[in-house]
């Protein structure tokens, strides 16, 4: 029964006609443009990008955002990702290195036996099983459907259990009264925060600021993409090369992976 009820636009359908399809595609694009209001324009005019999400659609668990960082291309003296993050999200230091907000940092590691050293950017690893979410007493620390781990600052009470629970030291607490934050990155005193994978950019089909800066000014070590899509560049690379998660032994399945560690 089901075999006879294939969708009409299925490629195996006998009446498949490439010319008709391209005509319909052009019509859809034209409609998107002439109807003008943002949602339609955005949704229909970019059919080629699988990750493009209409503004009014909720995120889905069909995608899982992840990052692959090739340490072979990450120079120890380069911190373009760190400064791009600070600029994008309006992070300002108060000359208190112990408590200043830090969403991404460069960590130097060294093998004491061989002396081999690496410098790796470490941010929120966007775990599949995030311990910060487990311990949060108010549910403010949460994982979005698309795998991005965030703090809902509307419900965060600033208890900092999540900071204790995170094995990556990824979270910061805001100690100072802030003003003139970035419109897309609200942050305020008394709440915990961490890397959002530039969620405002991802929702607009753009790359996180660190990834963009790394490819523009750095070594091009960072690759961002959908781990659930077998056709995405990141999926192909993690399938081809040996990659590692930091503290994989904890079983958290981070979305951030490293190569050449």
């Amino acid at each position: 029964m089901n075999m006879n009820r294939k969708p009409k636009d299925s490629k195996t359908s006998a009446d498949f006609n490439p010319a008709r399809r391209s005509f319909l595609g052009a019509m859809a694009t034209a409609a998107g443009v002439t109807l003008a209001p943002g949602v339609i324009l955005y949704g229909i005019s970019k059919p080629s990008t699988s990750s493009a999400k209409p503004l009014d659609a909720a995120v889905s668990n069909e995608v899982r955002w992840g990052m692959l960082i090739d340490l072979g291309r990450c120079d120890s003296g380069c911190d373009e990702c760190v400064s791009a993050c600070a600029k994008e999200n309006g992070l300002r230091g108060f000359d208190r290195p112990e408590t200043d907000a830090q969403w991404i940092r460069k960590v130097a590691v060294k093998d004491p036996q061989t002396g081999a050293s690496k410098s790796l950017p470490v941010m929120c690893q966007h775990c599949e099983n995030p311990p910060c979410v487990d311990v949060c007493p108010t549910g403010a620390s949460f994982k979005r459907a698309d795998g991005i781990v965030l703090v809902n600052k509307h419900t965060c009470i600033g208890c900092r259990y999540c900071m204790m629970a995170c094995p990556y030291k990824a979270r910061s607490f805001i100690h100072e009264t802030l003003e003139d934050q970035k419109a897309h990155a609200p942050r305020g005193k008394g709440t915990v925060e961490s890397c959002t994978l530039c969620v405002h950019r991802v929702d607009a089909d753009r790359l996180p600021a660190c990834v963009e800066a790394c490819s523009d000014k750095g070594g091009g070590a960072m690759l961002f993409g959908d781990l659930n899509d077998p056709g995405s560049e990141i999926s192909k690379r993690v399938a081809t090369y040996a990659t590692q998660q930091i503290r994989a032994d904890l079983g958290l399945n981070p979305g951030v992976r490293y190569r050449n560690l």
Partner: protein
Amino acid sequence: MIVHRTATRMIAVALVFITGLATAALAAEAESSGVPMPVIPMGMGDSCVEDTDFMRRNHMDMLKHQRDETTLRGVRTRQYSLVECINCHVVSGPGSEAVSASDPQHFCRACHDYAAINIDCFQCHASRPETGASTAGHAAGFAAPAADGVSGDQ
């Protein structure tokens, strides 16, 4: 009896009419002198996303609804977004720079000070458009520049 009932009804109607007149007169008096009223700055667009009466009563519910939709589910429509409220209801202070919520002239404060309601939105959210960017800065964050007219049109 019938005459009496009609007379009663007429008196009632007259009373209602007089009371109405008196109320209107009182309101006019309050606005012209005596009772202070909040001075509410105008927004930049032609009209708000909903009627003024509706906004007065429901803006908090709309903001709260949108806040959860955006934070938890990633819905990024701009019509009821706080950022768009801030971009449109911008008040210029001396030196033509937009005032922040620390200034009593700020759009939100104009009413909330009057009603003695403390809001904590601006402990985290920016209370004025980014300097030198205004709406353009926001468009950069949300990608679709063509959507700029949406909030004003609908």
